[in-house]
């Protein structure tokens, strides 16, 4: 247990990686959005303003998942840490970071609504489709999205660490074949209308549930892959 916490502390030695950079990305995209809204309002538009800028730091987590592994994993081997301990410490740390950020999203969303969309009627954090849900679903929704993206990066990186270039070629070839197969199936079967009416009816809670399940599967997959990876 003790060493798992030490892994988290090691990952935090450079605070920029897990805390600083996500906050800079979020702050930057928020300020840019405010500036754009202000310009739009000055031009006399009075329509509702929406922004997808809140997802900006989430994409960084994809890169973080890759980076936490490809660079820190070989170093953790030199620190005589088992793969299991490294995995648990890193995933636990990320989960805590994601949870804190998710709560922050929820709270600042409340502030956004209270200030009338930052005085400009804008929606950056409290997007209607998510903000309509109760607090738990909102927080979990953000949390699952963040963990999901981190896990995508993490899983791809573990496959690389274990099977190197061969692993990447096989993985992306298979992925391409599967995606192409599904598209072909839908196209020949004329399922596209059905698909879109099904996909557009997803709720935030539904995405949270299924996304969480996929994230769990990927977490298990990356753990099993990492168990025999080499630096």
């Amino acid at each position, binding site marked *: 247990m003790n*060493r798992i916490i030490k892994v988290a502390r090691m990952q935090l030695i450079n605070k920029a990686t897990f805390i600083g950079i996500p906050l800079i990305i979020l702050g930057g995209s928020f300020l840019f959005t405010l500036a754009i809204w202000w310009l739009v309002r000055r031009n006399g538009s009075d329509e509702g303003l929406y922004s997808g800028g809140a997802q900006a730091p989430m994409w960084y987590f994809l890169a973080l998942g890759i980076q936490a592994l490809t660079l820190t994993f*070989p170093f953790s081997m030199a620190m005589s840490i088992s793969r299991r301990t490294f995995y648990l410490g890193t995933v636990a740390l990320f989960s805590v970071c994601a949870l804190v950020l998710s709560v922050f999203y929820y709270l600042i969303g409340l502030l956004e609504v209270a200030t009338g969309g930052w005085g400009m009627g804008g929606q950056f954090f409290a997007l209607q489709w998510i903000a309509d849900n109760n607090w738990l679903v909102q927080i979990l929704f953000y949390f699952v999205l963040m963990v999901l993206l981190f896990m995508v990066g993490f899983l791809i990186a573990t496959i690389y660490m274990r099977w190197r270039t061969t692993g990447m070629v096989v993985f992306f070839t298979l992925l391409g074949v599967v995606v192409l197969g599904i598209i072909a199936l839908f196209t020949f079967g004329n399922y596209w209308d059905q698909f879109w009416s099904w996909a557009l009816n997803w709720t935030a809670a539904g995405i949270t549930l299924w996304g969480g399940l996929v994230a769990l599967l990927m977490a298990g997959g990356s753990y099993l892959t990492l168990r025999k990876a080499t630096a």
Partner: protein
Amino acid sequence: MPRTTAIATRELSKTYKDVRALDNVSLELEPDRIYGLLGRNGAGKTTLMSILTGQNYADQGTAEIFGHAPFEHDPTLSRICFIRESQKYPDDFKVHQAFKSAALFFENWDEELAQDLVEAFALPTRRRIKKLSRGQLSAVGVIIGMASRADITFFDEPYLGLDAVARQIFYDRLVEDFAEYPRTIVLSSHLIDEVANLLEHVIVIDKGRIVIDSDAEELRGTAVTVTGEDAKVQEFIGSAQIIHRDALGALASVTIKAKLDSEQREQAKLMGLDLSPVSLQQLVVRSALSSTTETGIDERTEARK
């Protein structure tokens, strides 16, 4: 009661695609000694150390550290320190951050020693590791290895890029610290003459096989070079095992595996033959060469460079 062995392997084998990196390696290393793991580039030194430290795993055979398999076993791993020659560090890490991290995980970490070595190697600790020169990068690994004071410490070609002064500092400090805090040290190297004086026990690996596993003192006496008139040399060495032969006209210089007693030495003198000791480096080079008969010629020229 016999002392527990520090490292024990039994019939360890590892194959990468078509290369046999380790071939039936069985070893026993006692605690609190300095071992030299010698061999050419690609002989299997790093592979062996990776398996012993749980960073890699064998296809066959077993490896035990203090009686326990190291792979994924934290209590065993925490007693080991192994910084690779090509060690990767987190991209944004500065030198002092790597030390801070090592201090977290190595219980016996000695910060004072680390700072002392930083000064001795003139290492800029506020610099990013990826901006360091090859020598400075080696120094980071050396400092982590020394200051960790782990029960078993592996040094993987620790001198790469270090200048002669820095290398001497490393050797001196290692001996000094070892005297005060005895532990098992495995030093992998192909600069054999430079480390020869440090080593108490020598293990030579070639093409994944152990070709020498012997006490350093003992090893030095196991071979001798006989120089003189070809016919007389031939007569003198008799059926002794020849490690190497050089000939120039009627003169021959033959290295044989033999322990000569004083009577034999006297006899050689009477026959007008010169006897000279064989350095550890020569012995290792010859042993490595004699195990590769087909490509021996090419490699001999390479070994001389």
